[in-house]
């Protein structure tokens, strides 16, 4: 008998019919022209997750985060009024980068060049010899960047006038995200990697299970079984531009002794933490364009795949925790959970890079997605639609100038 799974065949329904089944062009996964369009059409005008509220623990806290592909440095402050604001980290006198530290606590920011000094709400407070300028202080505030929070995750949008609010962008998923462990977290552990691969190729790896049995034969053992040898998900969900899957796990899988001990300790403590609501434990969220969130109370991680160039990206994975380590078992279980997630993530990197090297050769005009790679297909369609729309807008604007 041929190997089969519980989900042999995915029927195209009203959610998925317009995604089609045809091959996908390969060029968008390596060509600089396409990447430049993505930067304009997507990364300069979408809500991007850039931090977590726990990084701004008190009034006066600030962080600075770079968005390299947009040459942007973003200063995010928590004001004395407790409001979270974001600004371009750019002095309004002559453009000097205002803050060089990546985090800290202070309520005013002085430019190193001529000491213009700004409040944490962006207002220009003072500037030496200001009488000699030909402008009002009120017109010299820091340039604001749209910022909003959902599930304690901080999002920014580089569009000066975003086409939709964060709530509109997330739609009904916002309510679900508020129920995830990250929405209660007060701290996190983090690991990162750099990869010679396009952001979509990298991201796609983490939204298909087809590779699981080949790339994670040991670390992913409990995520597959005889009844589902590829470990395909229980279902997929499409939510406008975002997508979800419900992860399958083998009910007959038995953890190894040491692993089991760490899991049991972790589970007991997650219950005590209030991460015990397992409704969303198997839900895996792909938030457009480049964020993943897993609802698991045991391994509550996010991954952000940050584009750096057409063929280079950075992955940032965070595991969210509610409260500092207070006892030995908690510290041990969290360390084990982080090391486990890191093991699995590390196994993917080399094969993604190998995929990029193949695509870079130009040998393929198209790539293929099977029905269980439908989330990858959905990402491409969502990206391509925005790229095409933006190209049309730009061309129309160009014609208007003629």
């Amino acid at each position, binding site marked *: 008998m041929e190997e089969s799974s519980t989900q042999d065949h995915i029927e195209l329904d009203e959610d998925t019919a317009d995604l089609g089944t045809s091959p996908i062009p390969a060029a968008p996964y390596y060509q600089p022209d396409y990447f430049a369009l993505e930067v304009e059409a997507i990364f300069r005008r979408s809500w991007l997750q850039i931090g977590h509220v726990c990084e701004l623990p008190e009034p006066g806290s600030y962080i600075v985060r770079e968005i390299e592909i947009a040459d942007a440095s973003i200063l995010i402050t928590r004001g004395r009024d407790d409001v979270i604001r974001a600004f371009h980290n750019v002095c309004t006198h002559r453009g000097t980068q205002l803050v060089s530290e990546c985090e800290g606590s202070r309520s005013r920011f002085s430019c190193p060049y001529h000491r213009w000094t700004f409040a944490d709400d962006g207002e220009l407070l003072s500037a030496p010899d200001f009488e000699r300028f030909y402008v009002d202080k009120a017109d010299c505030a820091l340039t604001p960047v749209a910022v909003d929070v959902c599930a304690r995750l901080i999002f920014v949008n580089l569009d000066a006038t975003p086409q939709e609010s964060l709530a509109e962008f997330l739609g009904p998923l916002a309510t679900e995200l508020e129920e995830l462990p990250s929405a209660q977290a007060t*701290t*996190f*552990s*983090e*690991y*990162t*990697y*750099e*990869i010679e691969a396009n952001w979509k190729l990298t991201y796609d790896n983490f939204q298909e299970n087809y590779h699981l049995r080949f790339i994670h*034969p*040991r*670390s992913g053992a409990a995520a597959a079984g005889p009844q589902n040898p590829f470990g395909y998900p229980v279902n997929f969900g499409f939510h406008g531009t975002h997508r979800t899957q419900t992860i399958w796990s083998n009910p007959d899988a038995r953890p*190894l*002794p*040491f*692993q089991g*001990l*760490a899991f049991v*300790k972790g589970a007991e403590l997650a219950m005590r933490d209030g991460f015990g609501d397992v409704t969303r434990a198997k839900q895996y969220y792909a938030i457009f364009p480049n964020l993943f969130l897993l609802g698991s109370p045991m391994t509550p991680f996010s991954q952000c795949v940050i584009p750096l160039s057409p063929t280079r990206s950075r992955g940032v994975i965070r595991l969210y*925790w509610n409260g*500092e*380590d*207070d*006892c*030995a*078992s908690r*510290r*041990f279980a*969290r*360390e*084990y959970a*982080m*090391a*486990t997630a*890191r*093991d699995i*993530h*590390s*196994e993917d*990197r*080399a094969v993604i890079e190998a995929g990029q090297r193949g695509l870079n050769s130009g040998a393929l005009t198209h790539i293929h997605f099977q029905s269980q790679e439908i989330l990858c297909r959905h990402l491409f369609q969502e990206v391509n639609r925005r790229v095409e729309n933006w190209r049309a807008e730009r061309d129309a604007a160009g014609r208007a100038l003629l």
Partner: protein
Amino acid sequence: MSAVSLPSGFEALEVFVSDWSFATAAERAQRRLDSTAQEREVFFHTAENLVAPALDLLDAKPLDQHDAQEQRLMSLLLSLAHIGLAVEIQGDDEPRHARDARHITITRAVSDS
């Protein structure tokens, strides 16, 4: 290091204290990558049955009230969290696994003091 560096009952782990105690998760992960199969196996198999009693002992007090002996024991348990994955899960795949894991940098951990 004194002759009684660990709480009583954990004397068998004494020989690992100098090699497997670190302040950060990044250092523990690195030590795993730099270790030999034999080092990992001796550490893991000597310690595996002592992990549950060690956690029971250490859980009796909040972390910030641990004395120096208890802190050393905790530190060994945290290294075991990494080594356990290598020995119990990866087994003879660990060298290949380690090649890829070198590219993943732990930048912050809740256990870092």
